[in-house]
């Protein structure tokens, strides 16, 4: 009952706020952010002047894509340099040394691609300056890039015979300035008030009851925590992430963090409907996302609240599976968090997924492997699910006796090529890297456990990076040259080989003349289309990953052991 109330409160507040936020988003990306934020206009203009860009210039898709890539490249280099040099830079009270090259490379990519995979313990590795000027900035920027690409793709659907899909710099600045910053500010203040740490002082030193000395890491982290969730980033300031009491002290902050990480992803389908002027289309996409997420919640809750076979064998018949979970959160809160964070490409954790039951651990992994579409990351979720929807329209659309059409745009060879590329690059890359790591010595050195569970650890790492989720299964020693570079490559390719087709699709759709809808066009705002879309997402996922999952979590689950 408590779980039901929690879910109703969470999803109810998320959907209501997302609906309102979408109104704001539409204005922001149209360049008219509204009176309340009008005072920020000079800042916006100053940034354009500094960047020497004309926000009114309408970019073609190739130019837009070049801007995205250039911005991301510069961000990566800057973040790499900052990490390497942090030892000789200020705001380093713990006197942490420069980060070693493979790890700096991996981390730079990780934050620029909105993955926030962490092969390190932040409190022992990153100075305050690196955390604030490097990681936190990218938490904003990478989320804004995701939103920009999503908005550009939606423009492709909205426009007719247009060469342009918007201006990347304007989208980037507006998304950061008018959406992410104000939201993060509000959330950070509330988090601080509820006990999330925010200080520039170095680590605290305490004497324990037994007389030993304990060093307690802390830092300016409430602000980071806010954008970590809002931007579906997930990179924690502490190794324990949102399981750490300084990041997520109470059930209330837990709820707020859940709310924050679901908010913008669920606002995107509303924005889609608004920009099209056909809210039903947005609702259909939203319905697909909700159904997938809801099903995941159901399975996770059912699996995690059961006593595990190992505990039963030990005679603890009624003991819940509390391993890897925090005492201050319930099992249900952990299960819901694990699904929400993986379904949104956030990757924050408030419990260790490695210690979940086999099915409880398989659900988050599946949510990641479905391509981060339910609802996915900030912006990334929408453009990814629209790629799936394009394929769905193509496969099923023929069955209405017309060349397939999606929102008045005909889906021909070029559109299919782009959507197929965008949808398949992740499964192909994932399988290749997992395959490699299952034979190479360096790959096999990673997993802590043997057998199917060890294999699950490898699976999870690549699933997480290819899909820019960033959550870890734990158990895998990833801070090695092999994994740092390979996972880094996975993050880059998994991000930009989806962004490029999405922008290409935006370009070709915008250039097309929109055909008016009639009763002869395939309805895409109908329950049957929602069902088909879910079917295609599940089928692509199932067909690509079934063998891998069968050898990992499925075998584990069927063998009736915890690990």
């Amino acid at each position, binding site marked *: 009952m408590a779980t039901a109330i929690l879910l109703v409160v969470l999803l109810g507040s998320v959907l209501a706020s997302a609906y309102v936020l979408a109104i704001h988003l539409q204005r922001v990306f149209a360049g008219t952010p509204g009176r309340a934020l009008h005072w920020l206009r000079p800042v916006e203009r100053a940034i354009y002047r500094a960047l020497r860009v004309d926000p009114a210039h309408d970019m073609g898709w190739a130019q837009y894509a070049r801007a995205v890539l250039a911005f991301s490249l510069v961000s990566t280099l800057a973040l790499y340099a900052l990490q390497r040099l942090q030892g000789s830079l200020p705001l380093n009270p713990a006197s942490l040394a420069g980060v070693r090259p493979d790890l700096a490379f991996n981390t730079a990519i990780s934050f620029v691609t909105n993955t926030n995979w962490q092969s390190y313990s932040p409190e022992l590795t990153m100075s305050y300056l690196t955390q604030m000027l490097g990681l936190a900035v990218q938490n904003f920027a990478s989320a804004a890039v995701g939103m920009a690409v999503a908005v550009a793709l939606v423009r492709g659907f909205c426009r*007719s015979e247009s060469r342009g899909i918007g201006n990347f710099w304007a989208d980037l600045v507006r998304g950061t300035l008018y959406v992410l910053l104000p939201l993060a500010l509000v959330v950070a203040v509330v988090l601080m008030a509820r006990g999330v740490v925010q200080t520039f002082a170095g680590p605290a030193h305490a004497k324990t009851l037994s007389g030993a000395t304990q060093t307690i890491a802390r830092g300016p982290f409430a602000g980071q925590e806010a954008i970590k969730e809002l931007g579906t980033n997930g990179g924690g300031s502490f190794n324990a992430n949102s399981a750490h009491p300084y990041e997520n002290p109470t059930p209330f902050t837990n709820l707020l963090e859940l709310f924050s990480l679901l908010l913008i992803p669920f606002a995107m389908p509303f924005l889609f409907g608004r920009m099209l002027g056909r809210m039903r289309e947005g609702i259909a996409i939203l319905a697909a996302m909700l159904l997938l997420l809801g099903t995941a919640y159901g399975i996770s809750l059912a699996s995690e609240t059961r006593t595990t076979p190992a505990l039963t064998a030990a005679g603890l018949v009624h003991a819940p599976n509390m391993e890897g979970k925090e005492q201050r959160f319930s099992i249900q809160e952990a299960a819901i968090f694990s699904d929400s964070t993986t379904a949104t490409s956030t990757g924050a954790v408030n419990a260790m997924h490695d210690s979940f039951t086999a099915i409880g651990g398989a659900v988050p992994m599946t949510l990641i492997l479905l391509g981060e579409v339910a609802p996915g990351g900030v912006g990334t979720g929408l453009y990814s699910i629209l790629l799936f929807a394009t*394929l769905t329209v*193509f*496969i*099923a*659309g*023929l*069955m*209405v*006796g*017309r*060349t397939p059409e999606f929102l*008045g745009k005909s*889906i*021909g*060879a070029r*559109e*299919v*090529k782009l959507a*197929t590329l965008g949808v*398949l690059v992740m*499964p*192909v890359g994932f*399988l*290749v890297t*997992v*395959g490699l790591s*299952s*034979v190479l010595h360096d790959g096999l050195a990673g997993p802590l456990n043997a057998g*199917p569970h060890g*294999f699950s650890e490898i699976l999870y790492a690549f699933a997480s990076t290819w899909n820019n989720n960033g959550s870890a299964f734990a158990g895998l020693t990833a801070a090695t040259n092999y994994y740092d570079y390979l996972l880094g490559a996975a993050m880059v390719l998994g991000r930009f080989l989806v962004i490029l087709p999405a922008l290409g699709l935006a370009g070709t759709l915008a250039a097309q*003349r*929109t*055909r*008016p809808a*009639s*009763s*002869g*066009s*395939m*309805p895409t705002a*109908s329950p*049957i289309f929602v*069902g*088909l879309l879910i*079917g295609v997402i599940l*089928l692509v996922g*199932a*067909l*690509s990953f*079934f*063998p*891998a999952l*069968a*050898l990992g979590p*499925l*075998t584990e689950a*069927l*063998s*009736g052991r915890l690990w």
Partner: protein
Amino acid sequence: MTATTTSLLDPAIARAALLDSVRKLDPRALLRNPVILSVWVVSVLVSGQLAVDIGQGHAVAFEAQIAIWLWLTVLFANFAEALAEGRGKAQAESLRKTRTATVARFLGAGDVEEPRPAPDLRAGDRVVCEAGDVIPADGEIVAGIASVDESAVTGESAPVIRESGGDRSGVTGGTRVLSDGIVVRVTANPGETFLDRMIALVEGAERQRTPNEIALSILLAGMSLIFLVVCAALVPMAQLAGAGITLAVLAALFVSLIPTTIGALLSAIGIAGMNRLVRRNVLATSGRAVEAAGDVSVLLLDKTGTITLGNRQAARFLPVPGVSDRELAEAAQLSSLPDETPEGRSIVVLAKELFDLRGRDLSASSARFIAFSAETRMSGVDLDGHELRKGAGDAVRTFVTERGGKIPAELGALVEGVARAGSTPLVVCRDARVLGVVELKDVVKDGIRARFEQMRQAGIRTVMITGDNPLTAAAIAAEAGVDDYLAEATPEAKLALIRKEQEGGQLVAMTGDGTNDAPALAQADVGVAMNAGTSAAKEAGNMVDLDSNPTKLLDIVEIGKQLLITRGALTTFSIANDLAKYFAIIPAIFLTAYPQLSALNILDLHSPHSAILSAIIFNAVVIIALVPLALRGVAYRPSSAANLLRRNVVIYGLGGVLVPFIGIKLIDLLITALGA
């Protein structure tokens, strides 16, 4: 080419197709089909491994069976294509029969006639054809008029009139002149005539893939690629799990996962769609045109011949005050008795129906028939000293006024009332006295209204094109149930309308026959030229209707839609099939390493070997099972997209998920019983 209905499995065609499917094992023939080509590659690999294993004396019974079924998969795919091509060839053969070697009467310089074999004629040559001659090539009549028997091409035995200068000046090679004589200018070189192009298309030799087929091929290639990676990645994963996978098992998994069903049937579906069109006596210049027909959202339909019967018919007698119905009917009937036009006949019929007025034999009396002429715009008869006339309102007024008669005040209202109802008023007078008006009604074709309703449900707007005035046009449009009309249409107005619709994102289809229709036919997305039309019209359009029946535009749209639906349904079916195959094969592969995976063997298949074999056999057999559907096309009735989607998703989507579960289980039972 008469409307031949080749049965689906004509033994002769099937035999030829069997041979062809072996011939198509040449990988070069498979280059256009990446899915089947990859099956071919896998078959070669497995066969090679098999040979090695036999050489080393291993037990190969299972491996050999896999190899056999892999090759059968390729053969079945080839057979499907060969069968469709074979049926096309059979049609092409009957097309070719129309071109018997004729010797043309070539008109040389100075109009000197000389014999020349038909194949030697070039475009621009002139030939003479008189009664009994076979027209040697496609062409246009430059002089003369003739009745022509076109049954060799259309299957319609009634002769048609073809004459120079009008919109009925086109003649087709292979047809026969029955009477009179004409001079024909040849318009196509040998091998480039419509028939030649059509033969090439139905045979499949020159078939270019349509845009939609290309898009689908990209998707299928993408899916094949991902399954290639899935299977390749399985090797190290399985090794990690301590389970070895043989090449044969991996090949079986790969082939049953890639979309072989649709890959095998794709080209057969396209060829069969084209053949269905040919069977309706419509020639398309490309497969692309057939697809475009399915996409059409606006139909421009000529009123006469499409919406209404060509001839107007008398519907009512409307006398002016002081004249009885019967008196008017009698005068109208008398004036029409010698009139052989359909309108005239219909007046006689109506008079008989209403007043039982029998026709009289006028030949004995001193009757003199006045035929209709464009100048007088009246016809009638002079009988027993009276002048009976019927004709256009103003013509009769002039006639009456000249004879000192008075025009009744009520006539104007009567004439206008008839025109407003969409009919043509015919004023009747006897000498200087106006008797009344005969209403000639355009008769809307039976059932056309219902068809337009169906089109509307399918999201297609119908626009009636007519030279009538807006009043008349509006009335007929309302009666026929079209969505819109273009009155007082000129070729320019028609072209402008097409452009406007296309600007709005619509795809437009139309029919036309005259030279002045050519620009519009070229502009339209689907332009169907009438075979009787001018060669300019035929060149401009992308289809030709041999029967010159404009109503067929509706059929063409349906055939286009059926083609696309068939392709989509089989794609969906093919992809949905994969689920069951996974459940059959994956547990079988890893059962030795992880016995707990037997829980996934939900089909309770007998053994790993029988499970894998069943999957690959089902995969091959389903191709053959679906050949009839691919060739015939799925059942299609015009309906809204939402309805079609619901229906087809249930049949081919859900069906595609369930059927292989049943099929694989049955095959497993069968091969277990056979002791394989």
